[in-house]
Each structure stands twice: as structure tokens, then as C-alpha cells.
């Protein structure tokens, strides 16, 4: 039996920037998926108000066999955009990603850099009120996205990202909430705990 998350309660308001830290398997991505409504709670309650976008999929949700334009259209359709908005979306993304004539060629033949640019342009084209992000997206220049969302929930291993971007941090440990509070404090405890664990291991 898998207990992914247990006894985690919190609420966020407009302007909040929540960081999730913890080791692999701590439940960070599971919590993001739960907030996105992808996993439904077996016990407890999840309530989210406002438009939401979850950037969880590191493959950027692209189909390599389709052309850049088709990928953009599909992304728009997934977000329920009407036809005219789709055209505009295609233009925006194409300009942003600087794809030129490659837009009508399969993504399969794109260079690695072009794939990243297209994926990033797609991810940032939707401006939701609530943004859920796994850390991969911050590899790019995502600062403006982070600012444009009312509520941000960000999962990461990187404590520097948390202290830079977040106003509150949850430290998850094996599905439990270990610590909840100010980024500097939680990060210090998190790093301290890690150092302690390392010492204990070394001592043995």
C-alpha cells in the first residue's frame, strides 16, 4: 500500500508564493498533482478557486511527430481556447520561439535548442491565476511567469530557488509535512537536518 501524502493542511491566498522542498519521493510532485485535480484525495479535501495551469510534464507535452503549429493548436485546444484565439496563440508562440519556417515542419527535426524554445513558449503562453510548477521550468528564464501568477506553487530540490522566489515553504518528508514557514528558516532547518543525517551516516 502506498501512502503518498498524509496530514497536510494549508491554504494560500493571492500573492502567496509557496515552495515545496524535500528529498526524492517526499511527495512534492504528488502534492502538485493533487492541487491540479489530477489525483483526487482519498481522505480529506482539496479546494482551488481560479484558473490553474500545471507545468509538470518535463517532456513539455509535445508530440514530436506533429509540426510546431499543430503542437501549438493542440495546446490551445487543451486549454479550451476558441478558434480565433488559437490563431493568435500560434502567432504569439511562433514569434516568441523564433521558429520561422520551421513552424510547419515536424518537431522531430528541430534542433535541441528549438525544441526547448518552443516548449518554453508553449508553457508560458497560458497565463493562469494559479501556477503549479515542477522545478524543470525554472531552468529557462521563467521569472516573468512566476511574477504574473497570483499564486505560485513550486516544487524543487534547489534551496536557492526557494529562498529567491518563495514567501512560504513546506518541507515534505515521506509524505508528511515536516515544517511549514518562512523560507530562510525552513531552508536552514532542512539543510541542517541533511547535514546532521550525513554526519550520522559518516559516524556509523
Amino acid at each position, binding site marked *: *500500500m*502506498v*501512502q*503518498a*501524502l*498524509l*496530514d497536510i*493542511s*494549508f*491554504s*494560500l*491566498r*493571492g500573492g502567496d508564493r*509557496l515552495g515545496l522542498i524535500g528529498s526524492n519521493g517526499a511527495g512534492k510532485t504528488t*502534492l502538485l498533482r*493533487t*492541487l*491540479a*485535480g*489530477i*489525483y*483526487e*484525495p*482519498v*481522505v*480529506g*479535501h*482539496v*479546494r*482551488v*478557486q*481560479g*484558473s*490553474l*495551469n*500545471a507545468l*509538470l*510534464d518535463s*517532456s513539455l*507535452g509535445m*508530440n514530436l511527430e*506533429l509540426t510546431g503549429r499543430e503542437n501549438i*493548436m*493542440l495546446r490551445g*485546444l*487543451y*486549454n*479550451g*481556447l476558441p*478558434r480565433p*484565439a488559437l490563431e493568435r*496563440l500560434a502567432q*504569439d508562440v511562433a514569434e516568441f520561439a523564433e521558429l520561422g519556417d520551421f513552424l510547419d515542419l515536424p518537431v522531430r527535426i528541430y534542433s535541441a535548442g528549438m525544441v526547448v524554445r518552443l516548449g518554453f513558449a508553449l508553457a508560458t*503562453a497560458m*497565463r*493562469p*491565476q*494559479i501556477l503549479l510548477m515542477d522545478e524543470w521550468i525554472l531552468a529557462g528564464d521563467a521569472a516573468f511567469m512566476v511574477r504574473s501568477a*497570483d499564486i505560485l*506553487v513550486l516544487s524543487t530540490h534547489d534551496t536557492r530557488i526557494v529562498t529567491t522566489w518563495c514567501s512560504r515553504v513546506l518541507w515534505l518528508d515521506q509524505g508528511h509535512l515536516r515544517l511549514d514557514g518562512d523560507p530562510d528558516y525552513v531552508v536552514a532547518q532542512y539543510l541542517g537536518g541533511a547535514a546532521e543525517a550525513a554526519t550520522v551516516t559518516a559516524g556509523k
Partner: protein
Amino acid sequence: MPAARNALLDLNADPGIVTRNRMAVWDVLDGVRLLPLAWALGWLDIRLRYRRSVLGPFWLTLSTGVMVASLGYLYAHIFHTEIHDYLPYLALSLVLWGFLGTVVAEACTAFTDSESVVRAVRMPFFLFAARVLIRNVMVLVHNAVVIVVVDAVFQMWPGWHALLAIPGFLLWGIDSLAVVLLLGTFCARFRDILPIVSSIMQIAFFITPVLWQPSQLGRNQALLPLNPFFDLLDIVRAPLLGSVPGAWLWGFSRGVCLSARADASLSGSEPGGHSEQSTHTCRKPLGLLSAVPRQFTKPEKNRVGGCVRPTRPGSAASRCGAGAARHQLQLARR
């Protein structure tokens, strides 16, 4: 860029039966709103399957045509039937059965094939069912060319009775969506269902008059309606063969009864309930949207709250099919 699909998400661990049914209805309605997406996905499925080939989707037409021609000549000989009677019958039967069989087979993988989407973004499950249906309707349209060609060659025209196939087709559409939602959910949770379904469908292919004609049974023909696949097939096939409406009406009503009954009994919980409802008890609560005070839609009032304690995946499975599908996917990843 607006992306206001989910204005409110409100998930409780154990919603009552009323909430579940409302969520199921909203899942279907939300899926209907996303029909342009289902259409695009279904069409892309076909296009990607035949990408960079010269004939494209018309490979479907060609391969069906070759199969009908070769089987037709062989079995007309084996059955001692006149080819100009048998070939139009076979072309129609094979193409129609092809639709039914493929829908059932693809129903089993409807959700698991879309795992990456299911796990990346909250989408109505109805979307994936609509995708399977649209994809197979497109295949059917391509294959229908074979029927038309064969009928033209043998100068077989069903007459005005053929129009009576239209309500049959509509029923097929509803049944297909129901069967995809039902089998898709069960197959995502229990991976043994897929081989069971495929062997049942293979047996059904041979015991249903597809290759052979009902008249070949002689007096035992009367027993044929006991085979539900025969009823289902004949509500569309009989009018296209030019049968009398009386027989057709009988088959139609029987088909409705059987399929509705199958839906109700298979989906279990509620007598008379549609399978869409029963299999999708854990879905979108957009019904609550109207109850949200307007100020909540302003950005300042946005909130995220969570209080989550998932315990045992097994209990999720018993709670609802849709949740079970999600949990299965979740477990598969671990």
C-alpha cells in the same frame, strides 16, 4: 492569454451519491465542450498512423477492399453461395463489425494510451472516449467506400430502408461512448480485462453472422437474437441490406434494451443509470460553479487549499472507477 478552464475545483474524499452523479454529468458536459479537441486528437491519430505514406488513410480503404474481395471469393465458394449475393453482404458486415470490434478493443486502452495526458493535466474523461469514437468513425467512413464500390459493382441498392440505419448509427455512437468509459476504466485498473475482452470479441466474431449469413442456420435462425452482438450489428446492417422495417424495429428495440441493460448491470451501482454516470463518479464538480460568489473570480480572492491524506489505493478503487484509473496510473509510475 486566458486559460480559465477550471474556475473552481472542489474535491472531497468521499462525495455522496448525488455529488458523484453530478460530477459525472459535468464530466460529460465538459467533455462535450472540448469536442473540437477530441476531433483534432482523433484526426491526428489517423494522420499520424499513416504519416508520410502516399495513400494516407486510404490504406484503410485499400486493405479492407482486398480483404473483402479475397474472403468474398473464398467463402462464396465454401458456402456454395452466389458471389453477387454474398460479396455485398460480406463487405457490409466486415466493415460494420470492424467498427464495433475496434471500438471495443480500443476502449480497453482509451485511458492507458493517454496516460501522459491524464497524469499531466485534469481533463474530462469523456474527452478520451470521444477521441476513440471520432477516430473510429473516420475509419468507418474510409471503409464505407468499399461498401459503396461493391454495391455499385453488383448493383445492389438497399433502397429507402437504408435511411433507417441512421438511428442505428446514433445508438452505436452512444453505446460506443458508454463502452469506452466503462471498459477504459476497468482496464486501467485491472489489466487482466484486456485479454478477456479480446478473446470474447474474437469468439463473438465467429458466432455472429458476419462471415456467414443468418439463413445458413436454417430453423435455428430464431435463436440468433439471443446473441447481443447480432442485435447490435443488425440494427445498422439490416436496413442497409434492405430489410423490412418491422424486423428492423424489432431489432432496434431489442438492441436498445440489451445495451441499456448491459450498461446498467455492468456499471453496477444504480439500476437504470447510464454507465457514463456510474464510471465517472469522481469527476469535475463544475456544478458548484453557479454557487460561487462572483467576487471569488477576482484574482485577489484566488486561493489554493489542500488537506490531503490518501491512504490505500485499494479503497480508492472500490470508491469509484475513475479514481481507480488514476490510482492505477499513479501506482504504475511508482
